[in-house]
């Protein structure tokens, strides 16, 4: 098996008139892995995906999907990838099966194959009973799943998902994640865009953080968390009365201690496990009773704030504010 990257973006740039939507984005995605393109609304994620899926011509730079250049060999790129856009683009007036048949026929797949693969996909996405119903009657989560099923009818080796879970309730989201993990286990390479840090954390092997059209950080979720400041040690004492003594002890070991009486918690910066074992041993020598002692890594939220100076959900509208709140916490 050749080991060339499944996806390569090489200094992609896109201008819309005066506006620079994407300003030199590069990354590679090894075969069989998941890349999360993380960024707030308007960061250029969708435009990047549209360039990589041949829908929009780059102003400059290029990209390769399964080894094919998106500008010079768009047909070969289209044969190697599936795309699920931001809005579910399934046809509302068709049934689930008819949607699968339409796209399958456009791929030039045989009717027998479409029937077999379509049934399998409907089964896999828990849509078997709804397959002959008109999509208009589907829930948001069902539409998303059908949309993904349609993108998979020709089993593309590379799959692009543009904000696959935007607008889904938490349960549908977790279900969709499970399906995506399965696909990756079967060897599909995945590029997904998301504004939800949790989603990138859950699914992606590597994360590329984009903001205002440029890549501002890249790495695994762990690396990104490490980069944005040290981890914190959190000590929770069993009895609130012990707090002053615990604080005094901790101050002998670290420079800076933050006390939260309501939570009976002390927080101190810590450099990984070595600090933690040292502090744990010190507490073990006293008669202080602890509920918990542990390391807390910064969440991707903190990472984003650290990297960009603003929150992931920049200038949220009333509608997205609700959703963002719920999903980011």
């Amino acid at each position: 098996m050749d080991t060339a990257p499944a996806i390569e973006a090489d200094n992609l740039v896109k201008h819309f008139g005066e506006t620079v939507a994407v300003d030199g984005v590069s990354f590679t995605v090894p075969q069989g892995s998941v890349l999360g393109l993380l960024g707030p609304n308007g960061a250029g994620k969708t435009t990047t995906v549209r360039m990589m899926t041949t829908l929009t011509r780059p102003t400059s730079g290029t990209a390769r999907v399964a080894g094919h250049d998106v500008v010079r060999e768009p047909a070969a790129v289209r044969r190697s990838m599936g795309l699920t856009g931001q809005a579910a683009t399934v046809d509302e007036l068709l049934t689930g099966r008819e949607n699968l048949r339409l796209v399958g026929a456009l791929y030039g797949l045989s009717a027998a194959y479409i029937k077999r693969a379509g049934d399998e996909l409907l089964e896999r996405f828990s849509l078997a009973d709804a397959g002959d119903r008109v999509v208009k009657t589907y829930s948001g989560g069902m539409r998303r799943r059908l949309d993904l099923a349609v993108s998979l009818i020709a089993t593309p080796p590379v799959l692009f998902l543009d904000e696959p879970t935007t607008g889904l309730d938490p349960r549908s989201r977790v279900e969709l994640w499970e399906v995506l993990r399965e696909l990756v286990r079967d060897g599909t390479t995945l590029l997904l865009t998301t504004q939800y840090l949790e989603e990138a954390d859950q699914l992606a092997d590597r994360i590329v953080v984009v903001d205002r059209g440029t890549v501002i950080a890249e790495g695994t979720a762990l690396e990104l968390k490490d980069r944005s400041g040290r981890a914190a040690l959190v000590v929770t004492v069993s009895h609130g009365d012990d707090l002053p003594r615990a604080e005094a002890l901790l101050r002998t070991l670290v420079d800076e201690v933050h006390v939260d009486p309501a939570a009976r918690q002390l927080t101190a910066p810590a450099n990984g496990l070595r600090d933690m074992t040292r502090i744990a041993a010190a507490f073990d020598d006293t008669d202080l009773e602890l509920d918990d002692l542990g390391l807390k890594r910064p969440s991707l939220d903190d990472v984003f704030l650290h990297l960009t100076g603003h929150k992931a959900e920049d200038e949220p509208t009333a509608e997205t504010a609700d959703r963002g709140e719920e999903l980011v916490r």
Partner: protein
Amino acid sequence: MTTLDRPEIVDTGLLRQSMTIVRRNLIHIKRMPEMLMDVTIQPVMFVLLFAYVFGGSIATAAPAGYREWLLPGIMGQTIAFASFIVAVGLTADIDKGVVDRMRSLPIHPAAVLVGRSISSLMHSSIGIVVMSLTGLVVGWRIRDGLADAVLAYLLLLMWGFAMIWIGIWVGSAMRSVEAVNGLMFTTMFPITFLANTFAPTEHMPTWLRTVAEWNPISSLVQAVRELWGNTGPAPDAAALPLHHPVVTTVIWTVAITAVVAPLALRSFQRRTQD
């Protein structure tokens, strides 16, 4: 890593891909038959309204009177509205991301437009059939030979083809179905009324008559009327196009296509590729 069996993707060519999209558009009509109202109930209503409300007060040269004379006019209007049908369908597909989804598939870049055009022509043809049947009921007849009759239907289809390009142009330029509706109602109704479609041009004020007689719709309607034997030749005072309606109609369809098609394609590409 397991490897899935990947099916062979076959390039079935523009025609089959377009027909796949046509089939999808026909399923839409099957699920929402009210989509056909614009080529069934609406023109039938026009026939009845004009024939019975105005019919008595408009004198024409048709053997069976105004109703026979009127029918080709309404056919002309119906086929002109083919542009409307294309525009609404295309805007809806662009708006909902269906066009993007299809463009991401390994199909011929023109398949989306060809499929949309063929289904819109089928849609309009249903209207032509309904009109013909309605006409037969209210007294319209084909009075000349078969060849002339067929030529008249061909002219209507050619006209429909030219209208498709206007539809693609408008459909790509407009951002919503509502905008298309607004634009098309405020342009297509005056254009199709400012002609010989519903009333003879002889009694119009001179300037209006000139406008109406040079209106391409008038040539089409005059051509179809003459070929079906629903009217005599245009009076001497009529403008030049009406004396050679068939040739003029052919010239118009070619000219509209030649001018609008490149604009439409550019507009479609700009809309979908950026």
